[in-house]
């Protein structure tokens, strides 16, 4: 049942009435206490033997430093604070160069790479980042410096997350291309080894590299050997394109769809690019369908809520579940992403699904309202619908394709059968990272 329509800015819209694009008018934003999604600190730490240095105001530093502290990685992070005076006295660039130099010279180890993050105010003030990187590279020729950005004010142009996934591969330099090697680009967790994506690559004798499995900086540098770079997350697509263009290799974007035809098309595209025979995907699909049947049996008609942090294509996932008889009632998402086709289809298939904003101010007390028992897919959905029955994943959990559908269906079945310690799980920052709390 739709509520809150009497509000000046209601946080909910019926899917059948929702516009394409932004579902809600912009305004002040609330931040729910679900912390599983990775940020630019977590992502940067994926580069082995790299050190992160942030230059920004104290308020901005605080979040990144404590991200590192909570993941027990303070020894891989340093910072330079920017004062009011520092913004206006012409020392913007020299302060950063001097600060970074002092940090590097005082570190107990020599990092192979330094990720230097500047902030909104630097760019707004016209800071010359190129000069900074140039000077530092001359001073420390054994270290690879990468210009990185903590620029949330520019999120409408390109999100800090997507930008980070571009800069993540900046250290890669051209190497002789190995035609039998492939990278998966821009993911923050390993792709399921059993997925048809990984199996096709490995079963055909290709070497698969992925930053999440790199243990040394040299292994990371070896990623430059790949003939094909594959991305499947929306925030990784630009990074994949940029890297491939820079190294003169192939880029392949295979979005993580839940639509059988799209999955088949993606796999066909992969096989064509690799020059291998496309396997019969029927067994994979049958397994996915069986898992959905089993999950449906466990869930019965319990309402399902899906949020955009759990799966990158929430409408595609909702459509799959609706087609398999699940009672999908709620989706938490503020803006339509790459699953517009599924969104359009749902307007006919399930127009009464309610889309809720994740950030609208009127969602503040939503968890305390009366809710029926809901099974949530994602932390934000679990929080807002006040349920301990939830699937605790972000960014598809590393699952992909038909195998991914089967795995997420299994997780839904698990969630239906056993409550979780919601408070502990959603308070943990960056699912998959260490946490000291």
């Amino acid at each position: 049942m739709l509520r809150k329509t009497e509000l000046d800015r209601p946080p909910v819209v019926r899917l059948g009435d929702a516009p394409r694009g932004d579902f809600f008018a912009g305004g002040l934003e609330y931040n729910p206490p679900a912390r599983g999604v990775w940020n630019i600190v977590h992502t940067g730490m994926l580069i082995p033997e790299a050190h992160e240095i942030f230059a920004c105001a104290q308020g901005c530093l605080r979040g990144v430093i404590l991200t590192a502290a909570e993941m027990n990685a303070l020894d891989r992070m340093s910072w330079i604070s920017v004062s009011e005076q520092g913004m206006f006295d012409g020392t913007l660039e020299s302060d950063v160069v001097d600060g970074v130099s002092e940090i590097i010279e005082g570190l107990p180890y020599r990092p192979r790479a330094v990720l230097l993050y500047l902030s909104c105010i630097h760019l707004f003030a016209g800071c010359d980042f190129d000069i900074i990187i140039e000077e530092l590279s001359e001073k420390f020729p054994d270290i690879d410096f990468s210009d990185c950005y903590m620029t949330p004010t520019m999120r409408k142009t390109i999100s800090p997350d997507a930008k980070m996934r571009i800069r993540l591969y900046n250290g890669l330099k051209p190497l002789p291309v190995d035609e039998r090697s492939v990278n998966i680009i821009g993911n923050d967790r390993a792709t399921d080894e059993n997925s048809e994506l990984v199996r096709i690559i490995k079963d055909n004798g290709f070497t698969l590299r992925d930053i999440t499995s790199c243990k040394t900086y040299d292994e990371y540098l070896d990623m430059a050997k790949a003939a094909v770079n594959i991305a499947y997350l929306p925030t990784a697509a630009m990074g994949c394109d940029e890297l491939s263009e820079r190294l003169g290799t192939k880029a392949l974007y295979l979005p993580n769809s839940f639509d059988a035809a799209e999955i088949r098309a993606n796999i066909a595209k992969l096989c064509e690019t690799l020059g291998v025979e496309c396997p019969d995907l029927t067994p994979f699909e049958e397994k996915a369908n069986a898992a959905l049947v089993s999950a449906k049996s466990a869930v019965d008609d319990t309402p399902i809520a899906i949020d955009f942090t759990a799966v990158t294509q929430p409408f595609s996932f909702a459509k799959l579940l609706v087609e398999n008889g699940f009672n999908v009632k709620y989706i938490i998402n503020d803006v339509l992403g790459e699953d517009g086709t599924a969104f359009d289809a749902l307007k006919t298939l399930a127009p009464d699904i309610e889309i809720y904003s994740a950030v609208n101010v009127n969602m503040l007390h939503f968890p305390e309202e009366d809710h029926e028992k809901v099974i949530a897919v994602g932390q934000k959905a679990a929080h807002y619908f006040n349920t301990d029955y939830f699937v605790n994943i972000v960014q598809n959990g590393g699952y992909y394709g038909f195998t991914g559908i089967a795995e997420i269906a299994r997780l839904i079945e698990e969630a239906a059968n056993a409550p979780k310690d919601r408070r502990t799980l959603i308070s943990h920052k960056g699912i998959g990272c260490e946490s000291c709390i």
Partner: protein
Amino acid sequence: MKNVSKIIPCYAADTSGVCSALYEFGGMIVVHDASGCNSTYSTHDEPRWYDMRSDIYISALTETDAILGNDEKLIEDIVSAAKDRQPAFIALCGSPMPMMTGFDYEAVARDIQGRTGIPTFGLATNGTRSYISGAGMALEAIVSEFVHDMPKEDFDGTAINIIGATPLDFGLTGAVESMKKLFSECGIKVISSIGMGGTLDEIKNAASAKANLVVSYCGLPAAKYMEKEFGIPYICGVPVGEAGVVASELHRAVHDDRSGYMPIKRGQDIDGRAERLVIGEAVLSGSIAYEWKIQTRQAVDVLCPPDIDAELSPDKKDMPMYAEEDIKAYIKDRGIKEVVADPLYKYIIPEGCRLIELPHFAFSGRCFAKDMKDPTCNDYLDDLVLVINKKNK
């Protein structure tokens, strides 16, 4: 360089100070920022976020709005949210970007108040200063808006307000409730806690108090305001373990009608070379150092990195010290043997010096929150000294 840190964190910033100080009063606090401030505050600087709701939002500032100076969007968004949320007041503070664009907080606040009829104040934070600064200006604003002169509480003992307690310094340890209980046993009644553990209705009666107790430097601007406007004297100090010294100082303040400090020393101890050091917020650290000194009869120094501009140094020997390299050098050069400080200071404690861990939420956030203790509980200092003695054996 003073603004460089190789490993230890920085303290919570002024924006977090504003939000933390005003959290429980039923207002709407808006941070003019893109997105980072709200996430940082609600994740790392606010332990109440999960269990206690508060209308704290960001403006979701974009590059385009910043460049084009689109203040009207912010105003409309706040007016719209206020219509839906019906807050008791609106506080508007900001991050580095509005500082860059010269955003006029007071003017925008007046505009919003005019459109909504809700008391609104602008607090010109910019994310480059400590939480002490933000919380201080927020509590002063709330007092100047809602506290009006009134007859003194009809109470035989001393009626007081506790000013400046926030989870950033005290965690969620029940410290305010403990203080109320502690004081009630020695003829002191708490009218309001202007900070955590208080309500706006209680604060409206704050001028009926005969004295104010400032328990963190965050509370000093509000206390000074009330001294000037209502003639209420204040005392700075935290009853560490027992009410004794603080209670007598409060009675004295009322009797003499004179503000003052507990006999704490901030910066270098005047009685001689100290081999012991407390690092943290000025009032709480000073109070711990004082009690520690009384118990052990040995000098104790205090360093207060989050508030180097604090005026709480009766000995005028403040050390403007917040840089990692300076703190490290201070401990090493002076041969400090024992340091009471947040556990994350472990990275810069030299060999041969002991760290007695005292988690400080404004420094290490959630990392050691579960280990924080109520400083007013009876065995707080005993435990601390016992730990030290045990380690010394």
